[in-house]
Structure formats: structure tokens, C-alpha cells
């Protein structure tokens, strides 16, 4: 028995409103938050709303966005990658040691650093998958290994210089682009890496397997997922993203021993603001990228409001707690 309900026009209107409201509710909170912060920033700094202003902002935030997208792969599989920050530092000081202002070594150094990154990811993944060390501890150990290793390699102070064509990736521009004029190289890398990671995460089996492992490793294994290998790949992807971000940070900011300090926590925070679930099972690459942009936009906003740097830490702390509390409350409602 099927009954046909003829809605009077007025009711149809409310129904459409309801559908629209449901659609609004489905928008991840990171987007309205980003929009609100961006409007705030552009009120205080009118330059921000221009094309050049947006590009400058994206150029500065690209490395964190790439780090956060890499972190997402590990978070979604149920782990943490705390070795990101020290791998960024090691990438920068390693490159400048190899290059020593000699342009010819730029690409060799990038290749070597990529190799090192893959190795770091493999070791992280091996320790977690095969030695069954919890990733928090495994990557914490890796953090100490890389930090100490970097300091030992350079003797405590950065040596050498980064060549111009190396720094191009982080701070250079492509000239004479129609409409934009000059387009930052960093933003191109951000978009390219973002697209690749988005395809891997959302369109391939690998991405679904990573989410399945994060949701329930037992169930994933029983349904034929090679849990150990997939988990290793997640760590390798995070490490590769980290090396790419490291090259960009080195290009943007130059050589320093503190370049990567604390970035691992920032990337976890950015991912969480972007709706990634800690301990796995949920996440989205574009949302996480926007999480990173939101975090950076908030920092610029606090900066423009004249808040001293230390207090920005405090506000950042409140924001990540708020973001996770919000996610927890809304997900509880859905249950």
C-alpha cells in the first residue's frame, strides 16, 4: 500500500528549507570557521582579501597544510607521527650541508633527502607494525633519533647554505601568469601534493584500507587487508610529505636548527581542526588542508590583534580543545 501525499505549497517550502538546513549541517565546521577567521583578518588587514594577499597567505601556510595532510594518513590508520618536526629540521640542515651554496647539488640533495624520508617512514612503520611498539612511542623515539642525529651531523650549529634554486620551491614565484601576475611556487606544490594525496586517500583502495585499519584493525585483517604493509605505507606517505614541507620551509625561512620545532603538534592540531578523528577511522584530505589554513589564519588574526606571541600559544590550545570538543559533541548526537 503506497500512499501519495500531496504537500500543500506552504509545506513544500518548509521542506525545501529543511533540506537546505540538512545540507548546511553537513558542511564540515572547518569551512565556516575558516571563513569567519578570514573575514576577521581581512577586516583588520584589507590587503588580505586581495588576490596577492590570499596568495601570500597560502604561500606561507602551504608547508603546514602538506604536513597535516601527511599526518592525516597516519592518524586515519590509528597512529601518530611525532617525528615530523625533527624530520623537517633534518631535511633543511641536511640539504644545506650537501649543497653548501653549490647550485649543482640542489637536485641531488633533494633526492637524498627524499630517500632519507622514505627510510624514516619505513623504519617508523616497521617498528609499529612488526615490533608492535605503539606509534606514539615509536615516533617519539624517532624524533629523538633524528634530532640527535641532526645535531651530531652538524656539530650543533647549522653549516652550509641553501642554493637559490633550492629556495625557489619555498619562496619563488612563477612570473607572467595570466590573471595572477606572479604565482608562488609553494602554492603550486601545495595544490599538486594536495591533489595526489586526495586521490590516494579518497579514490584508491589504499585510502579505504587505511581508514578500515583505523576503524578496526582486527576486522580489516579478517577482510583481507594487509594491515602491516598498509600501515607502513601510511608512515612513508607522512614522511615524504614531511620532506616536501621541509624543503619548502627551508626555502621560505632559510637554515635553522629550530625550523621544525613543534611542527608535529601543529600538524596534529591542524588535522584535528579539519575533522580528522584521533585513533583513526575518519578524515578527509581537503578538510585537513583547510584545518591547517584555519590554524595559520587564526595565528595571523591574533597577530593582527596585537596579541604577543606567547598568548597565541594559549589561544591555539583553547581552539584545538574547542574543535575536538565540538566534534565529540556532534558525533555523540548522531549516535
Amino acid at each position, binding site marked *: 500500500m503506497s500512499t501519495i501525499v500531496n504537500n500543500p505549497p506552504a509545506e513544500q517550502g518548509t521542506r525545501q528549507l529543511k533540506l537546505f538546513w540538512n545540507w548546511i549541517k553537513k558542511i564540515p565546521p572547518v569551512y565556516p570557521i575558516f571563513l569567519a577567521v578570514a573575514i576577521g583578518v581581512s577586516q583588520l588587514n584589507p590587503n588580505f582579501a586581495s588576490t596577492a594577499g590570499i596568495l601570500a597567505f597560502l604561500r606561507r601556510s602551504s608547508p603546514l597544510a602538506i604536513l597535516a595532510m601527511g599526518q592525516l594518513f597516519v592518524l586515519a590508520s590509528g597512529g601518530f607521527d611525532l617525528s615530523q618536526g625533527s624530520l623537517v629540521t633534518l631535511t633543511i640542515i641536511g640539504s644545506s650541508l650537501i649543497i653548501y651554496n653549490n647550485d649543482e647539488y640542489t637536485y641531488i640533495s633533494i633526492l637524498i633527502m627524499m630517500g632519507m624520508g622514505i627510510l624514516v617512514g619505513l623504519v617508523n612503520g616497521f617498528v609499529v607494525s612488526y*615490533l608492535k611498539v*605503539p606509534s606514539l*612511542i615509536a615516533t617519539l*623515539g624517532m624524533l629523538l633519533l633524528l634530532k*640527535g642525529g641532526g645535531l651530531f651531523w652538524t656539530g650543533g650549529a647549522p653549516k652550509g647554505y641553501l642554493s637559490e634554486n633550492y629556495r625557489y620551491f619555498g619562496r619563488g614565484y612563477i612570473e607572467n601568469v595570466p590573471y595572477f601576475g606572479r604565482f608562488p611556487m609553494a602554492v603550486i606544490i601545495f595544490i599538486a601534493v594536495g591533489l595526489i594525496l586526495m586521490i590516494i586517500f579518497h579514490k584508491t583502495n589504499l585510502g579505504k584500507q587505511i581508514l578500515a585499519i583505523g576503524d578496526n584493525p*582486527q576486522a580489516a585483517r579478517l577482510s583481507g587487508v594487509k594491515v602491516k604493509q598498509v600501515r607502513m605505507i601510511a608512515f612513508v606517505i607522512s614522511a615524504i610529505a614531511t620532506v616536501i614541507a621541509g624543503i619548502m620551509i627551508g626555502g621560505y625561512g632559510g637554515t635553522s636548527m629550530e625550523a621544525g620545532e613543534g611542527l608535529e603538534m601543529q600538524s596534529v592540531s591542524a588535522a584535528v581542526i579539519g575533522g580528522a578523528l584521533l585513533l583513526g577511522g575518519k578524515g578527509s584530505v581537503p578538510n585537513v588542508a583547510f584545518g591547517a589554513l584555519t590554524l595559520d589564519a587564526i595565528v595571523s588574526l591574533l597577530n593582527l590583534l596585537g596579541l604577543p606571541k*606567547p598568548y597565541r600559544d*594559549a589561544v591555539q*590550545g583553547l581552539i584545538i580543545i574547542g574543535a575536538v570538543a565540538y566534534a565529540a559533541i556532534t558525533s555523540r548526537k548522531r549516535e
Partner: protein
Amino acid sequence: MTTESIATKQIKKEKLTQRIPQVYYFLVIITVLGITLDQIFANGNILSSPTILLNILIRSVALGIVAVGQTFVMIGASIDLSVAYTISLTSVMTSLIMQGDPSRVPMAIGIVLLIGAFVGLINGLLITKLNVNAFIATLGTGLVIKGFLNGTFTNWSGSVPRSFQALGYDKLGPIPLSLFLLAGVVLIGWVILSWTKFGAHLYAVGGSVQIGRLSGLRTDRVIIIAHVICSITAVLSGLFIVSRLGSGAPWVGPDGVYDLESIATTVIGGTALSGGRGGVLGTLAGVLIFGVIDTVFNQLGIDTFLKTVLRGAIIILAVASYSIRSKREAA
């Protein structure tokens, strides 16, 4: 007769074996290895001079106290990343309130203990009532404290009176006072975990919140109390550190990496990150392992940077040495 009595027997047997956590074998191996290396490659002072042995213990006091608290929250399947900044906050507030005046010592201690309890309460409430993941909640409160400290204090501030420095430097007979502090905290922690109702509840909640709740436990309250205890141990660590240093500064906690090291020593000591298992005696062994390693490295004159590398490798290997046998997947 009944299955119940067999079960209790089993539990009693397990309790006996649990009294000596596995990690003590590792501690013995590391110590013997260290002494051997010291005899061969250095001057062999570790065995011949008792002050070195004492130094190992004193080095372990600050980390040991806060690691006991960390053990509590980790048995409850939680984690506390804010302890390093709680330690800094304690050191700064203590020396600021005391201002070198002995009569203010009790007041200062009372106030910082209250501050600690408050931090723990906030952590616990965020985790239980707002359902914020413990990693993020305590990272967040840590950032808030860090921001407040770095924004308000830029240097050493205030000082503690000489009478308070006794805690850090005086000896009772041949034994430093601070060791009694460490021993006291470990003992109290052990008693609470092994012999009180709260201890049993904490293991149950850490094993599974759902089952804990279904069997009528006030799971939220248990987690909140564990966090209050953890923050209070951070305060005690901070009090010891400021009594050694004579004055407090915002960087004393993070410089000692007390957050990550307390977690690492707790895990090395056999407490599972997933909760429900472990104890303070294992943690104490984990802390002593760090102390022995530090001392041996100093004796051998190993480069500071290389020390960090070896430390990272040892943390991984120590945890791997028994996690590798577990059938569960790590995450």
C-alpha cells in the same frame, strides 16, 4: 570447588608475578652492561664511588615523581601531555610566592598544590564531560599554561628560601632527603593502585570504560581523580626542581622533556598505552634505566647529541623487547 575460587587463585598467582615487573630484568641487564662498559672504556668509577650511584638516584627524582602520576592516568587509558608545563608553572609560582621568605613556604606549597589539582580537574573534565581526546585535551591545557607563562615571565622570577632548598640538597644520614620524597610517592602510588578500591576501579576503567560503566562504576569520576593525582605529582616534581634550582623559570619543565620522558618511562615500565595494565614499580624501573643510561653515557664521555640518538633507540628497543610478543596490533 567453584570456578570462583580457581579464578581468585589465578588472580593471586598473577598478582605475585606482577610484583616483579619484567622491566627489572632489563634494568639489571642495562646496569651490568653499563658497569662493564665503564670498567673497560672509562675509569670504572660507577662501582667504586658511591656518589655516582647516589647521583643516578637524584637524577631520577624529578622524572620519577611525575612518572608515577603519568602511570595513574595511563592505567586509566588516558595520557597527560601538560605535566611539563605544570612543572614550570609550579616552579615559577613557588619561587614567586616564597620570595626567599621561610615563613611563606607552607602557603606557597598549599597554593601550588591547589593549582595542580585545578589543572588536573580541568584535564579530567575536558576528557570525561566534553569527550575531548586526552592527547588533545592535555596538549591544549599545556599550551594554555605555556602561553600564560611565556607571556608573563621572561626570566628567573623570585627565589626560594634556604630552608626550602633543604629538600633538594640535605641528607638524612647518608641518604638525600629527596630520595625519601621519591620513595614516598612511589610507595603511596603503589598502595593506592594495589590495595584501594580506587586502584581497582582505575584498572577496570582503563581496561574498558564500557564494562566499567555497566558494572556500576562512576567512570568519569575515576578518570578525573587520576588526572588530579597526575597533576599533583607534577607539582611535587616542580617543588623538588625549584628547591634544587633556587628559583623558577618558564622553561624548566619543557627543557627536561618531562611530558614525553614520563610517558616513555611509564611505557618502558610495562604500562600499556591502551590502559588497564601496569604499575608504579615498573615505572620506577623505567626511570632508573634512564638514570643509569645517562650516567653511563657521562662516564664514557659520549657526545651529547649522540646521547639523544641512543636514547631514542633505547626507548624504541626497550618497548619493542616485550611488545613484539603481544598478539594485538599496535597503533
